[in-house]
């Protein structure tokens, strides 16, 4: 049984689009039988928080100094390419 992973959802304000993405990913992963811990933050806060999470899903650009995997979350706002991004997230959660 592997440890529950933590995803950091990031956007410009840390409350608007990251909330929408967090909810969309949580619902979709539940359907795939996966749960995770969720945190939300402003994009500018990510470098300071990245060490304590497994990976990041962001709707805005994230500093290149962050070494944890960053998955682009815009698909959950536009609806375009959502399944591919969900597969990426699932793969990270199953690692």
């Amino acid at each position, binding site marked *: 049984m592997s440890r529950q992973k933590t995803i950091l959802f990031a956007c*410009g*304000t840390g*409350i*608007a*689009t990251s*909330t*929408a993405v967090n*909810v*969309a990913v949580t619902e979709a992963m539940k359907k795939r039988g996966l749960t995770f811990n969720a945190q*939300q933050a402003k*994009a500018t806060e990510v470098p300071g928080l990245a060490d304590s999470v497994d990976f990041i899903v962001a*709707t*805005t*650009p994230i500093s290149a100094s962050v070494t944890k995997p960053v998955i*682009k979350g*815009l698909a*959950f*706002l*536009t*609806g*375009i390419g959502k399944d591919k991004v969900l597969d990426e997230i699932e793969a990270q959660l199953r690692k």
Partner: protein
Amino acid sequence: MSEGLMQLLDPEAIVLGSDASTNEEIIRILAGRLESLGYVKSSYADAVVRREMTIPTGLPLERADNVAVPHTDPEHVLKPGIAMGTLKKPVTFANMEDPDEKLPVGFVFLLAINDKDKQIEALQSVMATIQNPDALDGLRSARTLDDVRAVLG
């Protein structure tokens, strides 16, 4: 469908077929509505305009008229609300994910958000509308509030 969005949009904060020619102009028009309706502080409009320059909110939908969702920090918000503007001619917003890319935007949803846990449904219904090409096409041709209601329910 995009059920519910109409309940969250203040009818007084809907601007159809705006002549605005820049993103700042449409943001200020919509922010002015939210301010006079008591949703946001007078600092909100400047804060959104400033933020849009560095952290843009254009969403690429592979359309000639894409969507933008400008917003800013909760400290400028008095109570949650959403304003919507449609544009006669698209104005330019930068892409949220790639600020160097410019997008023609025909629909602006200006968000006044101050509590993420209570405003999840509002955000979800905005996203559902954005992801529904028929709803966007309906909004583009809407000229009256009744037209908007027919699209958004």
